[in-house]
């Protein structure tokens, strides 16, 4: 399966880069199987939306908690979006 991001592992965290030319139709609603903390490293007008909530702008250094099985998605902004993900066992 192709993912709409590139990923490296840094200090045990997943660092994902969504390129500015990513097709916004690939940024689908989904949920994950583990709880996770997400730290925003780079973002210009990218948005984040949890199920049944309105989208919120992602700012650098924001830290979000996403519970497992919670539907969510990102909405494309300008430039790249870079996030660091810490999965919680």
């Amino acid at each position, binding site marked *: 399966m192709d993912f709409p991001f590139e990923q490296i592992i840094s200090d045990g965290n997943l660092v994902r880069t969504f390129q500015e030319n990513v*097709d*916004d*139709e690939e940024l689908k*609603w989904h949920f994950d199987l583990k709880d996770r903390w997400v730290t925003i490293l780079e973002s210009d007008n990218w948005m984040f*939306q949890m*199920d*049944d909530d*309105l*989208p919120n702008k992602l700012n650098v250094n924001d830290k979000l908690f996403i519970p497992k099985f919670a*539907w969510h998605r990102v909405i494309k902004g300008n430039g790249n979006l870079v996030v660091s993900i810490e999965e919680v066992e």
Partner: protein
Amino acid sequence: MKNILEILREYTEEKENPTLVLKKNAKISESLNYHIENGLSLTNNIYRVYSTGYFNLVNEVRDLYEQDLIELNEEDTLMVESDLGKAIIIEGQEVYLDAPFLVDEDEVLEEAKHRGKNVKLGKPFRTSGGPKKFAVYVKTPGGGVKKVTFGDPNLRVRNNNKAASKSFRARHKCDQKKDRTTAGYWSCNVGRYAKQLGLSSGNSW
């Protein structure tokens, strides 16, 4: 990805066919206000399909429309005049009317068998990558509920191509298909639900 012509076409259509325009002052939710402020139509509902937020917005707009408090474009009018957002219980399970969803091939095979069609079990009839089959629950004129299955293997590709879309509509006489309880109606009008179905375009066929 949308090309510049598609973006321009959508922009022009939105300007020529405004929607979600309040006619009078009315108390509205934060989510409807968000759609109005961002120029989003009901067809481009930002919520995940089948989520509470998605159906709440449809039902709120329907209420306003029925009180003549909001102006809608043709596509949004068709949505609120349908049963979209209304739930019923079938075999103990809550299902939503007029909301197309993807069905897996086992379910399609099972239905085909029930209808006496000669299908070979275990023989995949999807090509690699999988043609999509969809289903939708609709109310029948007699007051019952019917599950309509429809779909096309090349839906994604052709729906995004304006010429192919026009050709499809002409070939299948879509203008004459008004009966929501038929597969033909839904094949012709699936573009309205493109985002829900993961299709690449909101074009009607």
